[in-house]
């Protein structure tokens, strides 16, 4: 079950556990502005192929 987290925990996971940040908003919104280091996989394109580059051993944070 996914865990809801706040900003401080996001920072901790990125710092201590090399978490992967994924923005699931549409491409244009990502291109306009996104959190430093985030990648973009729009929700409608979230499938095995588009997530194949993500490391299952590390935490994944979506927003």
């Amino acid at each position, binding site marked *: 079950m996914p865990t809801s987290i706040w900003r401080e925990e996001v920072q901790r996971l990125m710092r201590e556990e090399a978490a992967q940040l994924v923005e699931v908003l549409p491409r244009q919104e990502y291109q306009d*502005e996104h*959190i430093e280091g985030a990648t973009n996989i729009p929700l409608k394109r*979230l499938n*095995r192929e588009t997530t194949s580059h993500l490391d299952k051993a590390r935490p994944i944070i*979506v927003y």
Partner: protein
Amino acid sequence: MSPRAAWRLETLGFTNVYDYVAGKADWFAAGLPREGELTSIPRTGDVAHRDDVTCRPTDRISVVIDRIRAAGKETCIVTTEGGVILGRVRTDRLDADAQVQVEEVMELGPTTTRADTTLEAIIERLNARKVESILVATSDGRLVGTLYRSDAEARLQEDRVEEAGQQIDQESCCCCKD
């Protein structure tokens, strides 16, 4: 959208999934690093001073005075232990009895803005209210710093000069080719 994405990832076999519910609006409001095509637009968090003197409501005035003077400031921002802004004390209120607690003389609920407010917007707001500075806070009320109108105006002016310089360079280049 992010809760659905988090669940979707779990159905795809990911087991260590977190949902940052507040998302990038919260991140940018805290003045944290951002990337993208719009990052060149200067925001409040880019020029805010992050060296405010802070104190707790139960601190004695005598202690706070020393702290403000040592830092060369004129105000102390009253916060919780976690940094949530409760009020502000200006030096002109510090002539009270030294044993009085901060909460007895502090100005409650000072106006704040978010770190992702554009400088143009905040300058307009400060001009309309005829104030020289404003506190910058995260979306959950934590202190980021203080924005001074003079700094915001200077930054915008610098950006305009730079932009004008780039336009002249481009035009010169075009002339050279001719």
